[in-house]
């Protein structure tokens, strides 16, 4: 029961309430203008037998913990005895000619699925995603799956250049997909912290495919921005080779 001898709401209370609510609205508006939710929507989560657990962690606002648990489960899956999963697969031959027996590689059909689960819980757990991509590409020789994983990882966290490095490494070593490799490396070049190693691979590839001017521009970029003397010297050497073969490109680097 309410006491009717006093006014419904005191003016001072009402004034405070209006001030506080206005401040909430103002702060919320200012935050929303700067705040971009960096994690995938719940509808994008990988549905697996762990879905309820993942949702439970997210209910508590614990994306990183959910990803940590997914990572531990991925390690347990990839690390446990694989005898029961062997399906009589013949010996694998990697694209670079290395023979891997089933005993070495094991068979982990759900490895990519588990990596995608991890990626969608925390797209910024870069080291774990690289581990999974590396395991898929170099241990399992499932290049396509590894590249699919890395492509999604790049889409979700484009600033992490080492994804590009891995893609480049995988494609470079598997050979024969230079166009895709160049495209990926050119994208990686857009980031300030793109390592000279990647830039060097790009320069070499462009040269190999006859795009000498673009190749020379990449090496000039390394000479001008490379932090290490060794990288700058290598790039200078490559540039000299190009300029000797194509003197018309001297205009790009008059020195």
């Amino acid at each position, binding site marked *: 029961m309410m006491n009717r001898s006093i006014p419904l709401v005191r003016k001072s209370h009402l004034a405070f309430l209006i001030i506080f609510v206005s401040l909430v609205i103002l702060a919320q508006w200012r935050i929303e203008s700067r705040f971009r939710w960096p994690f995938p929507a719940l509808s994008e989560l990988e549905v697996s037998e762990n879905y309820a657990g993942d949702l439970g962690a997210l209910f508590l606002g614990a994306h990183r913990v959910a990803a940590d648990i997914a990572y531990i489960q991925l390690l347990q899956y990839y690390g446990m005895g694989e005898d029961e999963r062997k399906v009589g697969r013949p010996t694998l031959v990697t694209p670079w000619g290395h023979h891997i027996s089933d005993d070495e590689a094991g068979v982990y059909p759900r490895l990519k699925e588990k990596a995608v689960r991890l990626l969608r819980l925390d797209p910024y757990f870069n080291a774990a995603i690289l*581990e999974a991509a590396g395991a898929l590409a170099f241990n399992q020789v499932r290049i396509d799956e590894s590249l699919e994983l890395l492509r999604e990882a790049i889409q979700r966290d484009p600033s992490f250049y080492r994804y590009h490095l891995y893609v480049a490494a995988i494609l470079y070593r598997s050979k024969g997909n230079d166009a895709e490799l160049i495209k990926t490396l050119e994208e990686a070049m857009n980031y300030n912290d793109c390592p000279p190693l990647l830039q060097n691979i790009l320069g070499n590839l462009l040269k190999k495919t006859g795009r000498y001017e673009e190749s020379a521009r990449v090496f000039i970029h390394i000479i001008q921005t490379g932090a290490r003397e060794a990288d700058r010297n290598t790039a200078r050497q490559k540039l000299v080779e190009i300029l000797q073969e194509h003197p018309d490109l001297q205009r790009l680097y008059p020195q």
Partner: protein
Amino acid sequence: MSSVFAIARYTIIEQIRNRLYQIILFFGGAILASSLLLGALAPGHKVRVIFDLGLVMLELFGLATAVFGAVSLVTQEIESKTIYLLLTRPLRRPAYILGRFLGLVAAVSITMVAMAILHVLVMVSDRMWFQVFTADWSFWTVYPLLVFMSMGKMLITAAVALFFSLFATSSVSALVFTGFFWVAGHFGPELSFMINKTVQGPLRTVLHAAAAVFPNFQYFNFRDMYAIPGFPGYEFIGWAVLYALAYAGALLTVSMILFSRKEF
């Protein structure tokens, strides 16, 4: 104002003497220490696991302290009618609410700081992996900030818990409603997503209303976002702190209005 601080002081003392509070603190410490075991399952990312799990535990036990504190201090005081002893004194009801709130926030802060110290000790116990984990960022600057932002959540949660403790019909319902607010508060981005995906109509209005009423705890979720490139800086933190203070202030004002008119 002195009556507010007297009640706040009394609330802190009551909380610290409360067996439930001591049990929460003990279990929080035990779980933090046991995070070492979970960390051992993730070689290479051991300290990250302990770091993440510890920060979540810090919040969850802060939440438990706030909720159980509010329920045990206020709801039971109303149920057992011992609140009469206080309200028959020359004490204004808003001062009672404010004192209880400040005391509760202080008790929650003590819990979180104590657990944070233990958490840091657990992490630095493995010096090598700790150095690897913190190689690219300044742990000693960022960590206090993460705990501070978690306290923003606790500020709002304490106000919510106090509100429901005053007006819920039982301790259980106060616990359930506060827990519901906690979960709903972590769905701010999902609500925005649903609003964007929903065409105009009653459902969109309901979603807008829900987004306005429920606090958005993700603004304070720095522990999940501190390492993300391009994450907003200190100005964002200032607005988030203002949001927490204003939200808690609004809820406390509503509590004061309703409590002033409540008859026992």
